[in-house]
């Protein structure tokens, strides 16, 4: 573990913590613009966080300790997730501790805890949200795993840093398997981050909400942590996408200069990705909840097809 590695690890975490709400703000802003609404400021998510942290937390009378614990667990999981995804550099001391599969497990861990917390108070909507979120999760997780497997087959490794290094150093050629996996990944990330065809992050419409139903009973600092965790999750997913499909510009070991360059590159990549996300959200309509399994099953099958293509063409 080098000093530079430690530095880049710290920088990755700090960058994630700071950039994640900004990314959410950027996506919201563009979505509003594309929908001909007047857009909120770019810093709106920070203001919301500040407001929530200052407020007192109102807990339901019957809420148990688990309920109070979950925001921290969810936040902790997402911070670790952002720490192991190569965002700025592949020289990450924490990276050997968790590979691509452990990353999927980490997301699952956070999801299970948040769902359990939603069931804890025992309201009608809490259980509903938990059920729906687990429904999205049980199809989205294997699909994400299969997408990561596609990349693993090419790089012969499930370590995220090795994947990024291999993919960044190959010749500029289009892998058919990665193309299919890319479509699958986009679908999965829309579902996992509660984005429009699956869920609408802006509404509190009782019958359709998923993510909002989960965190309905939270307020104050707990809600702030959960919202922050949600934006960290969006950030982590965007970075996984960038790492798998546009891995260029990420610094490697013993390259201090590249590390300085990596931050602006990442911001530019994220900015473009955020606009595209807003565009997708504007162009598509929210699905009925019963259609979501079909949507996710499609993503899952696409990812498996990606793997099959990989083996058929022998690119691995």
């Amino acid at each position, binding site marked *: 573990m080098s000093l530079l590695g430690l530095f880049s690890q710290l920088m990755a975490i700090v960058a994630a913590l700071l950039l994640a709400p900004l990314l959410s703000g950027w996506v919201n802003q563009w979505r509003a613009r594309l929908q001909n609404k007047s857009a909120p400021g770019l810093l709106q998510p920070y203001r919301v966080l500040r407001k929530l942290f200052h407020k007192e937390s109102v807990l339901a009378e019957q809420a148990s300790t688990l309920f109070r614990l979950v925001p921290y667990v969810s936040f902790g999981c997402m911070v*670790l997730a952002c720490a192991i995804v190569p965002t700025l550099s592949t020289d990450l001391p924490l990276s050997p501790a968790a590979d691509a599969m452990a990353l999927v497990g980490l997301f699952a861990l956070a999801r299970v805890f948040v769902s359990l917390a939603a069931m804890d108070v025992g309201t009608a909507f809490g259980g509903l949200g938990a059920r729906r979120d687990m429904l999205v999760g049980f199809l989205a997780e294997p699909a994400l*795993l299969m997408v990561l497997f596609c990349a693993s087959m090419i790089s012969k490794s499930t370590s995220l840093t090795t994947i990024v290094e291999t993919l960044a150093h190959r010749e500029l050629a289009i892998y058919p398997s990665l193309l299919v996996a890319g479509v699958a990944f986009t679908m999965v990330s829309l579902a996992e981050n509660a984005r429009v065809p699956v869920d609408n992050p802006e509404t509190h419409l009782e019958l359709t909400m998923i993510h909002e139903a989960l965190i309905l009973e939270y307020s104050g600092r707990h809600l702030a942590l959960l919202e922050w965790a949600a934006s960290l999750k969006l950030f982590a997913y965007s970075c996984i996408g960038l790492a798998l499909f546009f891995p260029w510009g990420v610094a490697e070991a013993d390259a201090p200069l590249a590390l300085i360059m990596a931050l602006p590159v990442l911001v530019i990549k994220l900015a473009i990705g955020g606009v595209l996300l807003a565009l997708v959200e504007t162009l598509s309509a929210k699905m009925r909840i019963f259609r979501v399994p079909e949507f996710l099953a499609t993503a899952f099958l696409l990812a498996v097809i990606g793997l099959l293509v990989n083996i058929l063409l022998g690119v691995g």
Partner: protein
Amino acid sequence: MSALLAPSGWVHLDWVLLVVVVWLLIGAAGALALRRLRLVATLLFPLSALCSLVLLLVAFDAASSVPEVAVLPIGLPQLPFHLRLDGLSAFFLLLIGGVSAGVSAFAAGYFRKGEGTPPGLICLEYHVFLASIAMVVMADDAYVFMVVWETMALSSFFLVMANHRIPDIRRAAYLYILIAHIGALGILLCFGVLQANTGDYTFANMRAQQLSPFWASVAFVLALFGFGAKAGILPLHVWLPEAHPAAPSPFSALMSAVMLKIALYGLLRVSFDLLQTRIWWWGVLLMAIGLASALFGVVFSTVQVEMKRLLAYSSIENVGLMCAGFGLALLFSAYGMTGPAALALTAALYHVLSHGFFKSLLFCSTGAVLHATGERSLGKLGGLIRYTPWVAWSTLVGVLACAGLPPLGGFVAEWLLLQSFLFTTGLPSSFLNMLVPVVAALIALVAALSGYTMVKYFGVIFLGQPREEKLAQAHDAGFWERTGMLWLVAGCVVLGLMPNQIIALIRPVTLLLVSGAMPQAGSGAGWLLVPVDAQRASYAPAIFLLGVLASCALAYLLVRRLYHGRTRRAPPWDCGFALQTPRMQDSAEGFGQPIRQIFEPMFRMTRELPSPFDAEPSYRVTVEDPMWYTLYLPLAAFVERLSRLVGRLQQGRIAVYLLYSFLTLIVVLLVVKQ
């Protein structure tokens, strides 16, 4: 055996035999003190747990030592008991010792006065069962194997029957013993094939035989059938969801966590040790059956509304995953790829251990819930985390492990299994290569679905508001129950956080069975699990946990320091609905509804919908196993028809029987003359 007289020269085998003997003595003591609950609970069961600990230590030590053999001069005159303790046996003894230590401690606090079978008798059956499973894994000839195997089946039959006054329980026990015996027939025939007409039934002789591929395949399929019936793989699983809920909870725990694995032990012993040839399609068959069981089990467990039934289906799922791992190891091994074979085998054996701990923990939790509330239907529970915090928090650990979440044991096994699937591109057959992504995808799907099931299990029982008023009087687990559960929790945590130390115990087994092993962890990287090399993949659960905990703690400190810790209690918000009752929570049926809808073709479902004019509208949905109707009932009808045909021979008149003997005589004479 002279070693028995001189304790200083004792080998591991003697210690295991000592534990077996003490277990039998404890059982006998229980039989003498039939109705003295206090004696059984406060002395005999804790003593038995102590024996389990001894067994655990012995097995721990025996895992890496040389195989030991012994011949016991009991049994029939020409057929002494051959025993052998090698790496594979030691590994399974480790499982038996580790799990039964917790379960016996739990059982000490579990049994109450006036429930079905008297406690002393349960104590006897329980310890005969424990002793027989310990003997099964040490058996070194077919004769002793069958004797102890049947002892295990019979003692477990009586334990399932503990509450024999309930007709459903009698029915479940009958189904169990029926399928166990059909399976035993398969095993017996398998040994018959393996000895290859030599008449010598010792395992050493079977190892020496070179069977032709045809007869080897026959032996493998018979073993798969026989041991599969006991392990509960498809389509011989029907007894499992009946027998597990019928048995008392500590015993369901042992059955699910240990007995199913003993069946897998038999399968391993025959297919990897006794059979010298390995054919690739065995692996594919085992993998296919395993995956089918896994998917079937997990889908059915999500829609169950009875807590032990839910866990029983989850056991089918987990055994299926283990079989998939064994199948993959067999496949690799048939193509001579020892490294990947060892990896797949390690993954499956790891799952054997971790499933042993988390599933027994979960079954113990159902027992504790049953005692606290008297309810076993999920629809009548809820909110228990407030009344039984000990049970709830230890169950949470089991639930996370069962859902295959890091950093607990279940995840390590799944991680290793998926890692071994990435090697299949090295297989020489392109057909098999194509199969792999599908298999890996199915495993990932099963793992994710088990998360769904476990959220349902924990959420409906322990979270939310109590669905019945009497739940507010629920009392937490007692001292012995707590001790047992905490021991199992510790097992789950150790299995999760110390994978390298556990894999070191599995190494001798993989060396024995596929003559390969996972690379040993480097001296500096004791916490880093590296299946092949660090470039390829690595996982460090301890650092993982530390990372999550550190971020949690930091977040907590910062939030409290920078802002404040003000909290107010208020009625729940729930989008402003004022009139809330606990009945408005998601029920167990409701939680399973999406799965019911998605996997509808797999179920046999009957729905009764209310009509708009009903004064008291009611909705009922029942989900049943279609295999019962498409396979078992027709089979039963066929057997019945057949026996009716045979029955026509029985005329009941002496003249007819004389005619039969006359005809037989003529036929025999004809045959002899030729």
